[in-house]
C-alpha cells in the first residue's frame, strides 16, 4: 500500500484494534502511548526490573489476583510502563478503578497470557505487520457498509481521537463537524471523493492531532481505503435521491390538478400526509437565479429532512415546497422546532422561508403553498435565514412584489429636484409617515420621534421640491414612490442583514 511502511513504535490504541487484544476488555489511560517491548512477568522481581514504555503481561505468581494485581499496577506506575495485561480471572471492577486512578492502562484478556504475550511481542517487533493487519480488518468493515453515514461511522470509530467528516463545499454532509475546526497541533488531511465522470463531488476531511495516536500517513491511507465504498454509496444515494425527487415532483403536479379535496391513496405511498390541516413552507433562495440544480436540491433535502424524514421536499419553480399536516390547525410546535433546527442551513445556503396558514385537504394545501410563497417573498426583505409567517403578512404582502428599483428610477426622472436635495431621505420618510398615518401630523411626528413643527416644516419643503402629496390625483402614486424609495434606501443602508435572521417588520 505504501512504498515505505512506517517503523514508528506501535501504540496501545493500534494494538488494541487487532487480535489478540481486539476482543479484550480495555481500560486505556492513553491510547497514544507507544509500546516498545513486551514482557511476560512471572514474578514481582521481574516486574521490578521492567523499563519504561514496556507492556507487561502478568502470569503465574504475579497474577494471583487481589493484592497482586493492585501491587503490580502500582509497580507498573512506578516504572512508567505502557500497560498491564492480565487474565480476567484475577481482574475485578476495583482493579479497573485503581488502574484509572493511577492512569495506568489495564487490559483484561480471556486467552492464555503466554500466548497473548507471544503474539503481542511479534506485533511490537514488526509494527508494520500489525498495521497492515488492522487495515485489512478495516477494509473488510468498510466493504460491508452501503451508506455514507455507515462508512463515516466506521472511520470515526476506528480512528479514535481523529474526527472525520464528508464535506460538500463547506457543508458537513456526514461524520463529525469537529474535523473542520482549525485548532493548534492538528493537521487536516483531505481526500477527494469523485462522482461519476471524474468530477470532484465531495471531500473527506480528517483532523489528525500531532503528535497523536495515529500517524498522518496511516490516516491518509485509511481515508483512501474508504473512498471506493464512499463513492459507491454516494452514487447510489444520488441515484435514489434523483429518482425520488422526480417521483415527488410528478406526484405534486398531479395533486395540484386534482378535482376532489380528498387525499388520493398514492400520496400515502410516498409517505405524504395531506388529509388533515396542511401548513406549507416555501424555501426559496434569497436571490432567485432560476431553477436550482440537482446538487443543491440534494443538499437542501439532506439538511431539511435531517431527523424528520417524512416531511416532503419538492423542487417547485425557483424554490422548494414542503408541508406539515396536523389534526390541530393551531399546533405549530413541531414546525417551530424544525425551523429552528434549519436556521443554520438556511443561512449557509442563503435561503429564506415562508410559512402559509393551515388549511384542510388537498385544496387547502395548494392555498397554503401559495401563501407560503408570498410570505417567502416578504422574507427576502430581511435576508438569508429569515422566516416569514403569512399570518403576519396579510394584504401588505402585495408590497413585496413591487419592483422598487424600477420605481426609484421613475423618481429620478419625475422628481429630479427632490432627488438632488441632500436632505431627501428625511423628507421622503416624513411624507411616507404622514401618508401612512392618514394625514395625521401628530401620529406621524410620534412615529418619527420628531416635533410636530419639524414635520410641518419638512412637509412644506417637500411640497416645494415637487412632492405634492396632498393633491388627491397624485396621492397613490407618490405614496408608492415614497415607499419604494424608503425601502431601497433602507436596504442599501443595511447591506448585510442576513445575519440578523429576524422576522421582518411590516413593510
Amino acid at each position, binding site marked *: 500500500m505504501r512504498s515505505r511502511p512506517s517503523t514508528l513504535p506501535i501504540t496501545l490504541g493500534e494494538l488494541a484494534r487487532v487480535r489478540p487484544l481486539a476482543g479484550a476488555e480495555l481500560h486505556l489511560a492513553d491510547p497514544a502511548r507507544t509500546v516498545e517491548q513486551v514482557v511476560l512477568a512471572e514474578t514481582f522481581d521481574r516486574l521490578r526490573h521492567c523499563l519504561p514504555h514496556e507492556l507487561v503481561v502478568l502470569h503465574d505468581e504475579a497474577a494471583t489476583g487481589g493484592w497482586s494485581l*493492585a501491587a503490580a499496577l502500582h509497580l507498573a506506575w512506578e516504572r512508567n510502563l505502557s500497560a498491564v495485561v492480565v487474565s480476567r480471572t484475577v481482574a475485578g471492577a476495583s482493579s479497573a478503578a485503581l488502574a484509572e486512578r493511577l492512569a495506568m492502562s489495564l487490559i483484561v484478556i480471556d486467552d492464555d497470557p503466554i500466548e497473548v504475550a507471544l503474539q503481542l511481542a511479534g506485533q511490537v517487533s514488526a509494527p508494520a505487520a500489525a498495521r497492515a493487519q488492522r487495515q485489512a480488518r478495516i477494509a473488510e468493515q468498510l466493504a460491508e457498509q452501503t451508506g455514507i453515514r455507515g462508512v463515516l461511522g466506521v472511520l470515526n470509530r476506528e480512528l479514535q481521537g481523529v474526527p472525520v467528516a464528508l464535506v460538500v463545499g463547506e457543508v458537513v454532509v456526514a461524520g463529525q463537524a469537529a474535523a473542520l475546526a482549525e485548532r493548534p497541533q492538528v493537521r487536516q488531511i483531505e481526500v477527494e471523493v469523485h462522482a461519476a465522470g471524474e468530477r470532484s463531488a465531495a471531500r473527506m476531511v480528517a483532523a489528525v492531532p500531532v503528535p497523536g495516536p495515529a500517524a498522518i500517513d496511516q490516516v491518509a491511507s485509511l481515508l483512501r481505503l474508504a473512498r471506493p465504498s464512499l463513492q459507491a454509496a454516494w452514487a447510489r444515494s444520488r441515484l435514489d435521491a434523483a429518482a425520488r425527487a422526480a417521483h415527488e415532483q410528478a406526484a405534486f403536479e398531479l395533486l395540484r390538478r386534482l378535482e376532489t379535496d380528498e387525499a388520493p391513496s398514492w400520496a400515502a405511498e410516498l409517505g405524504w400526509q395531506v388529509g388533515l390541516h396542511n401548513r406549507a413552507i416555501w424555501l426559496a433562495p434569497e436571490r432567485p437565479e432560476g431553477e436550482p440544480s440537482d446538487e443543491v436540491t440534494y443538499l437542501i433535502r439532506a439538511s431539511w429532512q435531517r431527523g424528520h424524514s417524512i416531511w416532503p421536499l419538492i423542487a417547485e419553480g425557483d424554490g422548494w415546497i414542503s408541508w406539515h399536516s396536523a389534526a390541530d390547525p393551531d399546533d405549530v410546535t413541531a414546525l417551530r422546532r424544525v425551523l429552528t433546527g434549519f436556521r443554520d442551513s438556511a443561512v449557509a445556503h442563503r435561503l429564506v422561508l415562508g410559512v402559509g396558514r393551515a388549511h384542510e385537504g388537498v385544496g387547502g394545501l395548494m392555498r397554503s403553498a401559495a401563501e407560503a410563497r408570498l410570505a417567502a417573498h416578504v422574507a427576502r426583505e430581511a435576508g438569508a435565514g429569515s422566516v416569514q409567517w403569512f399570518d403576519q403578512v396579510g394584504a401588505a404582502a402585495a408590497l413585496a412584489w413591487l419592483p422598487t428599483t424600477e420605481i426609484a428610477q421613475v423618481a429620478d426622472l419625475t422628481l429630479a429636484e427632490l432627488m438632488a436635495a441632500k436632505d431627501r431621505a428625511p423628507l421622503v420618510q416624513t411624507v411616507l409617515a404622514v401618508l401612512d398615518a392618514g394625514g395625521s401630523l401628530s401620529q406621524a411626528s410620534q412615529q418619527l420621534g420628531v416635533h410636530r413643527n419639524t414635520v410641518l416644516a419638512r412637509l412644506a419643503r417637500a411640497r416645494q421640491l415637487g412632492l405634492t402629496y396632498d393633491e388627491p390625483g397624485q396621492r397613490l402614486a407618490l405614496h408608492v414612490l415614497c415607499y419604494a424609495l424608503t425601502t431601497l434606501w433602507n436596504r442599501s443602508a443595511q447591506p448585510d442583514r442576513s445575519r440578523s435572521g429576524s422576522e421582518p417588520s411590516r413593510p
Partner: protein
Amino acid sequence: MSGGAGYLGAMASISAEDVPALYEGAKFYSPAVGDAGRSSVTSWLAGLLERNGPVPLMRVESVAPDTQCIAVCVLGSGSAMADLPPAGDEFVLAVRQIERLQKVTFGAVYPLAAATISALVPVVTAAQLGVPLIDADGMGRTFALIHHTAMHLAGVSPTPLAAVGPTGESVLVEVLSGPRADRMLRANVDTVGGWAALAAYPINAGTLRRAALPGTMSRITNVGRVLLETTDPEALVTRLGAITGCRRIARGRIAELEHLSRQNDVTIPAHPSSLVVEETGGLGRQLRIELRSEIVAVFADGALIAGAPDLMCLLDVSRGALATLDSLEPGDLVDVLVTPADAVWYSPEGMEMVGLSSHGIPLEHPRRR
C-alpha cells in the same frame, strides 16, 4: 484487682468484673474472630472467679526462677467450641497429663497467646488449679500455628504437649521440632471434637523471663476497658494509640468484598480473600485489604503500607466498635488501624515465620524498607 475504670497499668489480679474488659481486649488482638461462644465462656469464667476469688496476676520477674510454668490455649475453631462447649475440666486435665509425664507440679500458668478466647482460658485454668497467672505470653497477639511463639524463637520446645478434646479424649505429642508438633496436632483436632484444650511449653519461670513477651495480659485488659468506655471513634483511636501504639492509616467505605479461590501457601490454613475500601478523606486512595484468617496486608493504591506481623484491624465508625471480619458489608465506613507487633516479630527469624512471605506475598515489609 482493684476496681475503677480507665487505664490501670500493670495489674495484680483478675477478678470477675474484669472479664468483659478482658474479653473485649482479647478481641482487639485477634479481630478476625466472631462473637460465637462469647457468653458461655465469659459467664463460666466470671462464675469461677466469683466462687474461687480473683486470680493473682504476677509479673514474670516476680516469680521464683525455678517455678515450673505451663502455657494453655484453645486449639481449633471458635465456632466448633460454640457448638460443643467445654465440659470444664479439659484444661486442667491437659495440664495434669504433662505433670504426670514430667513428674512436676506447675506453680503458674501463662497464656500461649493473649488474644481471643485463648486469653480467657488461662485465667480459667489458673482459677481451677489455684495457681497464679503470669502476665506474659508467647505471641502478643495471635498467629496461626503453635510454634509461632517468642519461646520457639528463643529455642524452647513446645513439647511435650497435651491436647484434650471436649469428648474427654486426649493426644500427647512429643517431637523434636516445633513445626512437626503443629502438623501432628492439626491432624487430631477434628477427631477430638473440632477444638481442644492445649497445654504446652512447660518451662521454668527463669527461662520464661527471657523467652516470653511481658505485660500482655494487663495490656489486653486495659485495651478492653478503653473499648468498653467510649464509642467515639476519635477518642478510641487516640486512647488505643496510647496503650498499644496503634494508629489510623485510613478511613474509608467498603466498596467490594472479593472471595477468591486462588492458590494459597500451604503452611497456613486459610481462605484468601480481599477487601476494597475507598478512602473517604485525604488522598481518596483505593485500599486493598488482604484477608486470610486475619488481615495480613494493606495496600494503598497498590503500594504496601502495612503487613503482617503488624496487627491490622477495622473499626466500625458508625458503631465505634471493632468490626469482625465476618460482619463486613459493602458500604460500611471503617477506620483501618495498624498496631505494631512485638519487636521480636520483626527480626529476620520472626519475619520468616509470620511475615508477609508466609502468606504468599513476596514484597518487602514497609517497616524494613
